[in-house]
């Protein structure tokens, strides 16, 4: 955090727009570069959840599958936290 960001926060001001621009660009470029439509990404996300849920109990509320980009390389990043309570040690049957 920079001094400017701290002052903005303390005064309840909107943060400077350059950071917003950078974040929005990174997100939109990850999608542009992968050529995945939001619908397809959503479908893939659901299927990944289904597959993983067969083997471990995951928290669907907290889980996230998204595209991230660095140095013109786009990666699919899945963050799927396990539930604390393990309901069953066996994979669920189909």
């Amino acid at each position: 955090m920079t001094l400017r960001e701290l002052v903005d926060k303390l005064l309840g001001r909107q943060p400077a727009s350059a950071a917003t621009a950078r974040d929005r660009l990174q997100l939109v470029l990850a999608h542009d570069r992968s050529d995945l439509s939001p619908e397809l990404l959503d479908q893939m996300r659901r299927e990944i959840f289904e597959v993983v849920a067969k083997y471990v109990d995951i928290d669907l509320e907290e889980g996230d599958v998204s595209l991230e980009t660095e140095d013109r390389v786009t990666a699919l990043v899945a963050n799927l936290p396990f539930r604390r309570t393990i309901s069953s040690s066996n994979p669920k049957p189909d």
Partner: protein
Amino acid sequence: MTSNSRTILICSGKGGVGKTTLTANLGIALAQHGSSTVVLDADFGLRNLDLLLGLENRIVYTAQEVLAETCRMDQALVKHKQVPNLALLPAGNPRMLEWLKPEDMQSIASMLEKRFDYVLIDCPAGIEDGFKNAVAAAREAIVITTPEVSAVRDADRVIGLLNTHGVSPVQLVLNRVRPKMMANQEMLAVDDVTDILALPLLGLVLEDEQVIVSTNRGEPLTLNGTKSPAAKAYGNIAKRLQGEDVPLLDPSKERSGLRATVRRLMQTKIF
């Protein structure tokens, strides 16, 4: 005959970010620094390079007649009177777009490469047929963008296409930089843009009203050796292309005094 001629595409994706202005100024600067240079207007739909160079009244033939073999290349080339090292090959009729193929652009470029050290191609905006034709003739490219989300996004699309077409190297020019807005973090920083696009920076051009004045007159800024910031930037870009090591401008150093110092202090990371 020039054996190591360089054919450079100047493109941006988005329109109105300064492709044609860069092409005109770079053409003049390269020619003034001793390289024989031709600028080729590949924007057949909306041509303007002739106007920025002040050559609009001297066009007789265009690339169209050269391709149709109804005139020789040297008849179509328009020589700049004050800078005889520089020539323009004008774009043909907009109807050329209907039949022009990538191979046509390649044959024009190879004719020009035999005569000139530098062939600068002013690319049309967009990523449709006009772009595809122009990119077919290019060996290397300069992508020009402004620090705005839409321009950077479109530049990214173009860079992807340049990579697919095997164009290399691809370098970046950041245009219309406003140091004050950058200092206030209300404009994408230079590093933000170079990080996102992952391209080496060939030059930075500050926002400069003189650009408008020069286009009004049809006299590119680099022509008269003015001291305006943009003129200096275009001259430095030409020198870097020619292999000279010219340091890049630092926008945060552009403003001095107490206010600038306070602004820099405000950007220091505290935690």
